[in-house]
């Protein structure tokens, strides 16, 4: 009876806050999990006779404190944002695609090989060509995974993994034969791109290339596509239950091929930036495992395109601190891998906590009021 007595105005305003309470869960639980991961790793360090406070101070210093450390972190984040989307987008349709590395490699070779022939073309014309050729190559490669799935019933997980190895073999072959720059003796590469075809730093005071912005935009646009459009809604229905979606008359085949191709295009764009902004030519450094790290990020983000952004930045910051920790604390380079492994297991483990706290439910706050 008391609840009924509250004035409409106050109940309205408290409802506004209440709306956000359940969403707080998605912030509070991961933060709690990360702290637990830090604590477990601290125990690991103490057992080794190393100081946890030194460790975390160095991670902060190298990854997140100065302009230079942010430069290091954000540069590493660029390809990972794009690689993670190649997993997260098909996942909306219930597909586990783990072969983004292949699209990155082929996208990079496409950009590098075509770019090598466009030496005297102005950047305004050449850049869109390179960008599109990398995106289309990636789209074809991962779209083929979707095509095989829907037309032939081929399991997409194994097909994408096999195709990633095949893509890397093709890339290596092309870089070492047809498109090899004869001048690249020790490390086979395509010919170096002319200055006009290089992507530079963003005008933000630190040396972070435009690929990072492309990654951010891709994440935001993907999120809008999935959460706010009819197309995304159809995809989520198909992801929940393919049969039901087919019965409803949804174009499941087109959705599957479309989403896998879009994921592949985004991974191909990661290859484009690796070539035009980082290496200046396509060589084996381009396939450094971003595709596989992207799988981890996408799963940590629960395939939510917006959640990919903070997780990628956190991971990139950890990786950026690896060198400093090696030098200052006399620990092997694998220390960061152990650290990341523990933190990520903790985050994934924490998924079981959702919905268990009354604190995050409307009813808890209503009863209090």
């Amino acid at each position, binding site marked *: 009876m008391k609840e009924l007595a509250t004035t409409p105005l106050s109940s309205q305003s408290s409802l506004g806050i209440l709306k956000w309470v359940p969403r707080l869960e998605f912030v509070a639980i991961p933060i709690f999990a990360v702290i637990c991961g830090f604590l477990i790793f601290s125990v690991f360090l103490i057992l080794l006779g190393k100081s946890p406070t030194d460790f975390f101070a160095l991670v902060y210093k190298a990854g997140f404190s100065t302009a230079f450390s942010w430069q290091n972190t954000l540069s590493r984040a660029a390809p990972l944002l794009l690689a993670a989307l190649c997993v997260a987008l098909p996942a909306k349709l219930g597909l586990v695609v783990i072969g983004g590395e292949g699209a990155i490699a082929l996208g990079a070779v496409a950009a590098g090989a075509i770019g090598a022939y466009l030496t005297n073309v102005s950047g305004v014309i050449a850049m869109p060509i390179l960008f599109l050729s990398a995106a289309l190559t990636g789209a074809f490669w991962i779209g083929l995974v979707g095509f095989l799935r829907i037309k032939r019933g081929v399991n997409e997980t*194994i097909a994408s993994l096999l195709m990633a190895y095949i893509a890397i073999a093709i890339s290596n072959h092309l870089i070492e034969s047809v498109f090899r720059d004869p001048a690249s003796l020790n490390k086979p590469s395509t010919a170096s791109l002319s200055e006009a075809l290089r992507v530079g730093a963003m005008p933000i005071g630190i040396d972070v290339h435009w690929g990072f912005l492309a990654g951010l935009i891709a994440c935001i646009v993907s999120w809008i596509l999935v959460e706010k459009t009819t197309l995304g809604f159809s995809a989520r229905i198909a992801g929940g239950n393919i049969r039901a979606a087919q019965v409803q008359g949804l174009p499941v085949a087109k959705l599957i091929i479309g989403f896998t191709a879009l994921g592949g295009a985004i991974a191909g764009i990661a290859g484009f930036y690796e070539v035009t902004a980082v290496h200046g030519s396509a060589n084996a450094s381009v396939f450094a495992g971003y595709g596989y790290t992207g799988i981890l990020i996408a799963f940590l983000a629960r395939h939510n395109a917006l959640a990919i952004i903070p997780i990628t930045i956190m991971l990139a910051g950890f990786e950026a601190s690896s060198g400093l920790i090696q030098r200052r604390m006399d620990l092997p380079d694998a220390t960061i891998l152990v650290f990341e492994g523990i933190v990520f297991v903790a985050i994934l483990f924490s998924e079981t906590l959702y919905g268990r706290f009354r604190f995050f439910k409307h009813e808890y706050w209503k009863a209090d009021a």
Partner: protein
Amino acid sequence: MSDVTDIGLWGVPLAIIGGAIRVSTPFLFVSLGECITERSGRINLGLEGTLIFGAMSGYAIAVNTQSPWLGVLGAAFFGMIFGLFHGWVCKFKSVNDIAIGIALMLLGSGLAFFFGKPYIQPVAPDLPAISFGWWSEIEQVRTALQVNVLFIIGLIIALFLAWGFKSTKIGLTVRVVGDSTDAARAIGLEPDKIRLLSTAAGGALAGIGGAYLSLYYPGSWNEGISSGQGLMAVALVIFARWNPINCFWVALLFGGAGALGPALQSVGISEGYYLFFAAPYVLTLGLLIATSSPNKAMDSAPGELSITK
């Protein structure tokens, strides 16, 4: 060495047979392990990490005890620990088994690299091999038929598992749990416990697969020891349709195709080296496409498996 040219191109199929046996063993162990886990309705993608940790721990133990077999046992033990951890974590509501597996891949390889640094230099005793080529005068035949004991053990485990899944109570229990959690509960089984044990068994076998890498072929410990065999073997289980005997053939096929490049190189054909390197993947993909059908997608898949649902 003078024999190499004597048999000419016959060296190629011989090298492929030898290579198939040598290269396939880690695939065999990991895929058999994953076969048990997936039959119980869970998928453990972390076996790549388990394989690498098995390679390191097996090597370290063999260096310290001078016994390769203790190394294999130790690798199985640590593999089991990883499996138990995966099985235990995934028991909790809404924890994703694929995701935990990927994180454990990172953690397992991280721990292996971390603790493995002092063991990159020392030399461990190798696992023994049996010469099935004693009857032949030709060097290549004898090399090809040098069969490691673990390969034979792997074959026996494959046969045993095939029989076990079909004809034993434990095998049937695992299959029931894998096909339907509800049905298993209804007849009084404890799905979580059975999955825990199945994942532990899978981890132990993957650990042995890793010990084979460091203690026999290539036979040393370094951070590049696995080129994704653990991950690939997990995928091969899907291709093998969750049948242990198929796992054996698929591993052999994959190993044989992988030996094609080096075999051709040994007779002087080195053109397109990278394309030959892709042979096992192309072959598997081709077979996968040929044997799949859009209408009867994954009939034999365990019903509770998230990856084929």
